[in-house]
């Protein structure tokens, strides 16, 4: 009975959105039309409730007794195919980490879909939007529920495909089509790494099952002693995959462009579903990364580089959604910074993963909130999102204003809000890592970069806030004579997310609820009681407040300062505004050589290969011309050839011994 309930809950989480996707895709255009949101809403609600049951009911109850949640996971599935040594099962697996992810993914997606029905109203692609969103959530749930790398890869790609469909939702706009293609192609580079990593795991571990690869220390150390370079290589390859999906330097270029999609999609991609996949992959593979400290340091370094570059870029952007996009990239960098801290000592592995996952968790809420609020601004301003063209919206859009303020404060790290606790966790882990003997200097540097980035974060977030909501009231002409505040269906998700962004960190952070739950994940060690770092907290409070203060000074008190600074440091300003010219650099370093190769390949293909193929293609023609004479329709010739054939094979059989 208990098992039945577990099975039901686990299957229902992905099945509901899948069903909704199919129903909406088939019936949306003809039958559902304006009601296309209904299947999506109900499916995501079912998934969310089931995730909560899984989180609070099933997993803690596996062992039934004691205080502990099960260290083990639950697995259900069936064998799809078993040929020789090749086994391909389709399995669903849940443990603490996936349960947390699922609750976050389905919860945020549900709120986004509520918002989306208001936002996308009157769009001709209304059913298509909800079909794709359902499919997106289904893929993400399956990714998180995978029990082996092959299945993970399949749904990793499905997530990529759905993001392509959603970013390019308005495919008639050339920029949207280009952005969708860019996202897809850049992700492909990362996927190459991922699939190489999976191949390496398959050849070295002889299995791609999570239980086999990740849960037994003996297996891992056996492989590690046999060939010490393999596991770092595997980790590097897997991280390459994560870099693509989670938009890490230098593959982050796709994410800001992904703003071309409808705003709810941006919220979905940035907060709940797609970009978190990379972080999840690295966290999930912690047992492997532990064996490769160098790769872990690489992870941290890439995270730090991404965080600071993205933050610097965000300083000068004038597009509200782009500021948020770069902040996402920057925050993902923070998560990776934390994940690599295990290199400083094995006792730091668990706190490092906890900090990374915790930031992922809180970030999902306040970033979804910020994007939806930005969407609400965009909705009111007649699809204008350039901050130079409007200001002083706080009276016109009161709900959007205060919810955006909560989100911005959470992102900036204002004490007691969600982002404060998780960012503090990351800084604390970095701080502890900087005290290790071996890599102290390295992690010390990273800590300084992280603090600087935190300052920048607070600054650019509130820059956007002040530019949008303060100052004289100005509207662009596209907005009409009077901008309208969000409708209730859009306002309520904002309110709910605002409450989450405000309280969820306080609820699960300092109380150690999150940490002690996550520690039950397979592959993580038991939690260690470690107190709050008051010094770090004080530091990050000061940093956050200073950033907000500067932003106030620059953009409210004396608006002349930024102009003066921009003039004084023109080259630096241009670098930041030009997004560090990464697109251009990648264009020269990657795209141009590839185009060159493509040109050569085209020439070779057209003249050499085509020539060969054409001659091979002419071969059947010549052959058939010859064979046609045999295929004469005359029975005697058929019989003759048969006789000849028999003679030939008999003779050959006699000659060959």
């Amino acid at each position, binding site marked *: 009975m208990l098992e039945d309930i577990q099975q039901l809950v686990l299957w229902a989480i992905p099945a509901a959105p899948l069903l909704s996707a199919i129903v909406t895709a088939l019936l949306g255009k003809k039958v559902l039309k304006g009601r296309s949101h209904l299947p999506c809403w109900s499916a995501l609600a079912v998934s969310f409730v089931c995730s909560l049951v899984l989180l609070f009911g099933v997993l803690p109850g596996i062992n039934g007794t004691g205080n502990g949640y099960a260290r083990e996971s639950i697995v259900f599935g069936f064998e*799809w195919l078993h*040929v020789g040594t090749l086994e391909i099962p389709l399995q669903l697996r849940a443990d603490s980490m996936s349960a947390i992810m699922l609750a976050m993914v389905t919860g945020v997606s549900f709120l986004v879909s509520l918002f989306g029905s208001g936002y996308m109203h009157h769009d001709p692609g209304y059913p298509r939007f909800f079909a794709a969103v359902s499919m997106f959530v289904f893929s993400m749930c399956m990714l998180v529920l995978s029990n082996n790398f092959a299945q993970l890869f399949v749904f990793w790609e499905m997530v990529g495909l759905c993001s392509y469909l959603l970013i390019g939702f308005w495919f008639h706009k050339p920029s949207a089509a280009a952005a969708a293609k860019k996202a897809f192609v850049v992700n492909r580079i990362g996927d190459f790494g991922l699939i190489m990593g999976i191949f390496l795991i398959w050849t070295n571990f002889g299995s791609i099952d999570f239980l086999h690869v990740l849960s037994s220390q003996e297996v891992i150390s056996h492989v590690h002693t046999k060939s010490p370079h393999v596991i770092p290589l595997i980790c590097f390859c897997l991280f390459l995959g994560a870099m693509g999906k989670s938009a890490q330097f230098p593959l982050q270029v796709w994410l800001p462009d992904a703003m071309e999609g409808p705003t709810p999609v941006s919220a979905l991609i940035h907060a709940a579903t797609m970009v978190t996949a990379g972080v999840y992959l690295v966290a999930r593979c912690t047992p492997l990364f532990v064996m490769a400290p160098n790769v872990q340091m690489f992870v941290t370094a890439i995270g730090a580089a991404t965080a600071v570059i993205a933050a610097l870029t965000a300083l000068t952007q004038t597009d509200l959604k782009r500021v948020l996009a770069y902040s996402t990239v920057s925050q993902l960098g923070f998560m990776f910074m934390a994940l690599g801290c295990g290199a400083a000592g094995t006792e730091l592995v668990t706190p490092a993963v906890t900090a990374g996952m915790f930031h992922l968790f809180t970030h999902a809420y306040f970033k979804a909130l910020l994007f939806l609020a930005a969407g609400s601004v965009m909705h009111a301003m007649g699809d204008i999102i350039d901050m130079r063209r409007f200001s002083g919206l706080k009276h016109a859009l009161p709900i959007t204003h205060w919810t955006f303020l909560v989100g911005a404060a959470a992102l900036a790290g204002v004490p007691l809000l969600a982002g404060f606790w998780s960012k503090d966790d990351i800084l604390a882990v970095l701080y502890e890592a900087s005290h290790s003997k071996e890599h102290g200097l390295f992690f010390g540097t990273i800590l300084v970069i992280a603090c600087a980035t935190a300052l920048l974060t607070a600054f650019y977030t509130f820059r956007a806030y002040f530019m949008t909501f303060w100052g004289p009231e100005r509207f662009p002409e596209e907005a009409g004579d009077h901008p309208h505040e969000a409708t209730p269906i859009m306002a309520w998700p904002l309110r709910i997310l605002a409450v989450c962004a405000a309280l969820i960190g306080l609820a699960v952070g300092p109380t150690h609820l999150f940490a002690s739950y996550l520690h039950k994940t397979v592959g993580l060690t038991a939690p260690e009681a470690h107190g709050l770092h008051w010094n770090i907290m004080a530091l990050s409070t000061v940093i956050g407040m200073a950033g907000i203060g500067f932003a106030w000074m620059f953009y409210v008190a004396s608006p002349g300062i930024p102009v003066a600074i921009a003039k004084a440091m023109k080259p630096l300003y241009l670098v930041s505004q030009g997004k560090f010219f990464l697109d251009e650099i990648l264009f020269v370093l990657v795209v141009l050589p590839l185009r060159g190769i493509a040109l050569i390949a085209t020439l070779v293909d057209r003249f050499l290969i085509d020539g060969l193929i054409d001659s091979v293609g002419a071969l059947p023609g010549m052959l*058939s011309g010859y064979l046609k004479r045999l*295929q004469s329709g005359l029975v005697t010739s058929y019989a003759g050839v048969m006789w000849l054939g028999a003679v030939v094979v008999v003779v050959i059989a006699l000659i060959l011994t």
Partner: protein
Amino acid sequence: MPAFKELNQAAGLIIPEIILIASVCIMFLAAPFLVSEHGKTSSGLRHRWGIFAILSLLCAVYAWAGAPMTDSTAGPFISDSFAWFVRGLTLICGILLTLVLWDQADDSTAAESFACLLAILAGVNFVALSNDLVGVFLGLELVSIPTYILLYLGRNDWMAKEATIKYFLLSIFSSAFVLYGMAWLFGMVGTTNLSAISEKAAVVAPHAMMRVALMLVIAGLSFRLTAVPFHFYAPDVFQGVASSSSAMLSVLPKVVGFAALLRILPVCFGTVSLAEWEPAAPIKSILVWIAVLTMFLGNILAMRQTNVLRLLAYSSIAHAGYMMVGLVVGSSAGATSGVASLLFYVTVYGVVSIGLFALIAAAGSANRPVRATADLAGLSRTRPVIAFLMTVCLFGLSGLPPTGGFIGKLNLFLAAWSEGTQDGRILAIVLAANAVIAAAYYLRLIGVMYFEQSTTVDEPVVRPASWVAGGIAAAGSLVLFVKPQWLWDAAKAAAGILSA
């Protein structure tokens, strides 16, 4: 008394076949009384005979399902899991073929057509059940002779007559090869009993005569498999006869050919179980080359065909090549069994191929059956369901997911590759290359159905039974992708690897 007892016991092994043959007798005896001198009958007679044939097949299925899979030998018959598998396959194909024939049979000759089909099915089963060379040969002839009649009855024009005559003459010619090879075999071992041959071959050193004998048998049976260079009749005949007959010709001769080969070849190498069998050196390399040539020739010539039935004839030749891969790699040390892959593939191919022919019959209009590929243009708009089912079947034939054809090709590929020899690798690569070539013309057919405009507007003819057969085949092909394991287990049991 012991003789009677033995007869009784032997009859006990062939109950499904007895049911089929009894039905055949009833049909042949009763049919003439229901037709007037001028060939006039009460209309709808074919429905009655169709129901009768289906009932008879269902009884046979019932008897088959109840029959034990354990090995037992009695008289000329051997009943083992291999025979069990072939029987099941034949009966399933038989039901589908009956449905296809149902729509196309003439009221006046319906009884004879159905009876011939049932007799052919019984013949296939007898080959699989035989423990004696004579039994194998009689089984083969029980397939051949009704086939001539069936081909003749299917269509009544000069093309059909020419095709039938061609098939008749060449089939007899090939039977002569088989019989001649069997004579050599008998001359060498002095017995026709397969178990006895196996015992002899195990102790006597291999002799050149044996190779001649086996090559003659293989050459003769290659005609049925449509292997190169014994394939020439296939395009002419497929094009000439009714599509119900083409459906039958594309599947049952292959089944019976492989059944005969798998009964005769292993015992001549002294092996008792299929699980240990692998063709010996010279014969193996000849089979490898026949397989390679068959795959390439079938696919390359299929690419240039504009007649759908001719195209499918060449595709059927190519499929024979794929199947021979499974035969050649035998069941040697590799992880995946060749024979099991072969049996799995034949099943998938059989179901899908019959389905496709059924759908082609259903897609035709009253006065213009589907002949050229252009006749399929715009089918997705005029008959969307048929176009969809046909697409599924074509996916199955080309081995694309999500169909059982994909699993079938994957098994064959793994079997060839995991054999570990150079021959195996060559076969695996040729197989993969040919799967790509083949996709070109299968996908072209799909393209014609979906992207080209229909040129003619014809009153479609309603052929419900063909629809049902096509639907079953398409569904089966999809099911075999999702749940292939049971069939794979059955195939492994039949190949003697898994005791079931």
